[in-house]
């Protein structure tokens, strides 16, 4: 067992545990904090997979911006008062379905697909963000520009939705 594999297992366990923590914590703030941890481990996976730019984006966007937003909303709404009850009557069918899905997915990725086809490349790839940026701003220029519009729309939508109408 190589060190990398050991690291993977440790990180995988962390990811699963933090996900479970988010799933099960009664308090929304805890759930958010577990999720931040989870995102962090996933970012480390990205580094392992030779995608440092994505890893840093993950930390910045998810771990930073999005989760801060979540926490901000929780604070805003007074999440302490919000009951984070489980929906107990759907736990059994949801658990069964989740189990079935996991089994199916594991059968798919571990059994049905031969490992040789899924060998991760051993060659060291250029992990620098320059080629990525070049690709993004040449081939994917149009989708990139469209995302700016998407973000603009989201921003305007968020403002409209949360705006309180002043009387008079």
């Amino acid at each position, binding site marked *: 067992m190589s060190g990398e594999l050991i690291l993977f297992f440790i990180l995988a366990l962390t990811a699963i545990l933090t996900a479970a923590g988010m799933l099960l914590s009664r308090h929304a703030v805890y759930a958010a904090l577990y999720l931040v941890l989870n995102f962090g481990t996933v970012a480390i996976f990205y580094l392992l997979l030779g995608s440092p730019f994505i890893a840093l984006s993950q930390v910045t966007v998810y771990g930073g911006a999005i989760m801060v937003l979540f926490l901000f909303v929780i604070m805003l709404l007074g999440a302490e008062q919000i009951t984070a009850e489980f*929906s107990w009557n*759907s736990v059994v*069918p*949801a658990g069964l*379905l*989740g189990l*079935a*899905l996991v089994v*199916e*997915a594991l*059968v*798919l990725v571990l059994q*049905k697909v031969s490992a040789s086809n899924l060998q991760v490349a051993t060659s060291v790839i250029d992990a620098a963000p320059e080629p990525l940026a070049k690709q993004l701003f040449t081939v994917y220029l149009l989708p990139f520009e469209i995302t700016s519009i998407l973000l603009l729309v989201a921003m305007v939508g968020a403002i409209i939705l949360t705006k309180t109408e002043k009387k008079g």
Partner: protein
Amino acid sequence: MMDNTSGFFSLVPLIVFLPVLGMLINLIFGSKFSEKGIGAVAATASGLAFVVAVLQAYSLSVAPAAQNIPVAQWIHIGTLVIDWTFRVDTLSVTMMLVVSGVGTLIHIYAIGYMHEDVRFKNDEGRYRRFFVFLNLFIAMMMILVSGNSYMMLFVGWEGVGLSSFLLIGFWYDMDTLGRPSFANSNAAKKAFIVNRVGDFGFLLAAFMMFWQFGSTNFDNVFAAAPAAPAWVILWITIFLLVGVAGKSAQIPLYIWLPDAMAGPTPVSALIHAATMVTAGVYLVTRSAPIYTLSADAQYIVATLGALTALFAATIAVGQYDIKKVLAYSTISQLGFMVAAVGMGAFSAGMFHLITHAFFKALLFLSAGSVILGMERGHHHLAHGSHGDHGGHGSRAEAGTIPEVFDPGDMRNMGGLRKQMPVTFWLYMIGTIALAGIFPFAGFWSKDEILADAFKNYPHVYWILSAAAFLTAFYMGRQIWMVFFGQPRHEVAKHAEESPLIMTAPLMVLAALSVLGGLLNMPGVDTLSLWLKQTVEQIEIGEFNPQVALISTALALLAIFLSWWLYMRKPIQAGQPDPLKKMLGPIFTGMENKWFIDEAYWFVFVDRYVDLARFLAQTVDWNFWHEWFHNSVIAAGFVGLTRFLADPVDLGIVNKVSKVLADAVQASAQSLRKIQNGFVRSYALSVMLGVVAILGYLLFK
């Protein structure tokens, strides 16, 4: 134009286009012209056509060969090729001369006649219309005589029929006495419908020609005719004869001509005496190469013509209307012509056609003069002696309703020679010419026919001689009744002479009636030789002194007899015709036209009305409407719709859709429970789907 080869032949289309031009000028600009202007335009158009015809005759006398002058393509269908081509030969030019010559004189006469007629009839607006129609007739007649094929001839044939219809019905809203009535328009319709029967025969003949010869061209037909089967020739000639009987008023289709006298007198003279009705004679003469092929056809034509001549003459004896006498006389004389051309005496028939055109036009126009003279007298009486002459005022201004007076009834006349001396002498010339007294035109032409009949067809000769005797008799009777004796009516005492514009053309016609015989004097035979250049079958007639003597003697005897009957003791007003006592029921028959009209009415018209009534009442109303439409279609449809509505629509369609709707509603009721509004249960469903699909893909 003047080179020797073509002569004036290229001008020939003008004989049609000049009258058409005159017609159009009067039609479009006539409202701005005075009456004299309108008449001058029409008469000039006709006169110029006459000039063109004279030029054609001159060119033909230089170069006698027949000319075909194409004008336009008409029908080109497969092998059927019919063009509008003028045929200039001695026969057609002879007809052109007669039509345009007599036509021009009658135009001039009509300028005066219609001037008064429209005033007596109280509608001056129709003056222009009359000349438009008259020019139309001249143009159509020219097309008839100048066509080079039977179909082109038929165009003119129908065209003159139309003109005839229009002119007979010229006073369509009144009867001959000016009273409001449908009488005149009925006469026009009668003429038109009876002519349709004849046209039907003509068309059948033309179709047979096309079927047999592949052409209706005169040249082609005549060239191919000798090779055709005898029965084809016979039927063509018989069908043509039906056409002739219609247009030239032969038995059994003559009945329209007496009624056609409803038209103004110039029309009677031009169309129904001098020109149009002779179209049949022209047709037979033109078809001489066909008729001479069939002795049977010639026999039929000759006999029919002779019988018509005698039959019409007997009716003429019993008539009282001055124009009716002349009308039956015209039928009779047409019978002479048809008999002549039937016998193969084509030049004699054409000769009689020409002379008859002269003296019968003269007689009709003189009769018109007499009638107008009587009208003037009547007008004079109605308005008192200070009334202005010639009918310049309208009748209505007198304020009194004048008695119904027939200016054409010979029983109202008598002694007119004192009041109308010019007309009297002109009438006398016409009568002598018609009676066939030497040396007037009628003598020569009639004698030529009789001589030919005597030689070839004895029975025709005897019939025609009897007809000639009656001709002289009824003309004598007419003269005595109209011009001699004492006036039998107050009006006759005040009759007035016609103006010069009416009498001048009559003088020309009188001169022609006197001298017309010179055209074809025995031994000279100008006309026969002239026509022989076109109609090869013409044989130069021989003069038969015996026949001439007998016919002259018969004519003189008839005139004497009429004098003895009508002048020895001139008949007085209200006294019946002296013949009535002598002949009894025979005269009644003559008087009533042998009840032929009534017979036609009984045999054809009433039966036709019966048939129409049967079709309308029984077939259309009772059968189609009442039974078929109401009982079969309507009831069947109602039954069908009821069946479709009740069992099919309500029973099946409605039930099926209701069951479907209920099923959909029930399933919707059960399914709506699934849509509970909880997002998580929807997500559960999606999850279920994902698991199921993935499982299927994995473990299939």
